[in-house]
């Protein structure tokens, strides 16, 4: 069965490069360039996993995460925080807020695949 990953990320370059990595590993990839659009895509597509950027125009990644976890329709989808900035105790904050994991950009493609494989299908 084809597994879908939704990337919520405002930088096109990151979407394109991440998509290349994930597609090469056999995943189907969808994307949204802001939090609001990401939430509606998540409701519509029910992806198997979400990669979520933090610094985005409009609602940021933390707020997007909160809304995804509050909504019964999307609450069970594992979310991996995907960030290029330092956040104070980012890993702890992410898991406390219901994210499955926390991942830094730039990243190692193989590590991303490993992380996605680990969390995909897992209920959070």
């Amino acid at each position, binding site marked *: 069965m084809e597994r879908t990953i939704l990337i919520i990320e405002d930088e096109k370059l990151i979407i394109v490069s991440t998509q290349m*990595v994930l597609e090469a590993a056999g995943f189907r990839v969808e994307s949204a360039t802001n939090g609001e659009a990401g939430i509606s895509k998540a409701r519509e597509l029910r992806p198997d996993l979400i990669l979520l950027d933090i610094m985005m125009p409009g609602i940021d990644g933390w707020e997007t995460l909160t809304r995804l976890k509050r909504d019964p329709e999307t609450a069970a989808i594992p979310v991996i925080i995907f960030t290029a900035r330092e956040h*104070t105790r980012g890993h702890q904050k992410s*898991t406390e807020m219901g994210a499955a994991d926390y991942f830094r*950009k730039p*990243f190692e493609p193989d590590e991303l695949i490993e992380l996605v494989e680990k969390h995909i299908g897992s209920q959070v």
Partner: protein
Amino acid sequence: MTGFADVMNGVVFADAEGNLALLNPAAAHLSGLGSVASIGRPLAQLCGRGELMDAVIAHHEAAGDRGSSTKVVEIHHSERDLLYIRLQTDVVRDAHGRAAGVMSILEDVTANYKTDQLRNQYLSIVAHELRTPLTGIKTFSTMLAKGRLGALEPRQREVAESIREQSIRLEHQIDKLVNLGFLESQEYGRDLQTFDVLELVRASVTPLLQPARDKTLEVSLDLPETAVAVQADRSDLRRALQALVENAVKFTPAGGRVRVFASIEDSEVSIGVEDSGIGIDPRYHRRIFERFFQVEDPLTRHHGGAGLGLFVAQGIVAAHGSRIEVTSELGSGAKFAFSLRKCGSTGRSGDEG
């Protein structure tokens, strides 16, 4: 006592019995206490005191065991919003060395603190702006180099691999730039997760491969076969390891060797870096971990750097309940190593801990 009226910093002095003996106007203002009314009363029983006095009292009580202490406390001031006060506490002794009381100096460092915060915010934004294109370069070059986008000729693969390595080196430089800004405010080892430390050891070598090649150094990894899980702050530990590897590469002359190793010892994993470099005179073995310290030597002058690597690395390792030990003689290489507690079994990483 009135001589202290003009002092800008707050001064609080309690005698050997713990009674308030001096509270200058600046301290009274910062702590929200009336200066005259409180003199002579036990410090611990002052009424109407705020967060600042609570901190002062805590430091006074600990002064007997700890001696001097310095800490920045964040307080909510009734008139001035959020204040950052540097609290310096020390035991005052009489001519015979007996404790005569405990003195605290309160310095309002809010302005510096806000400047630091702005600078860190700026650095963090710059880092984000740099990391975004770098993510593209690293991802694309890795995919190319690993043949995921089709087979390459050996020469093409070499170039792709080199682009990948340079991007990792640049990533390391950006991390260093940001970390420099966060030096003051950083509390290490706070973002704990469980992961395979060997993977981190391998990754910490990559940014230094090109500089090592440029000096024709032989870099080797000597690691156990199976994964070793530890619970630690991953990005902090990475910084510590990279500082050790970077130093080894920096202080080893052309043609030398750098060995990065890990070994299991009962419930611990020992991690370190050994080189065949210029070595360190034992009289500097303690001082090299001091902030900004660099051995003054005509041979090492040209190595550059800010003298922060080992200082930060030791801080990080200490926050994980360990210590970096150094073994070295001048002219015969150096070995830096520390131990971490292993975590449960040696399975693959599991982050929910």
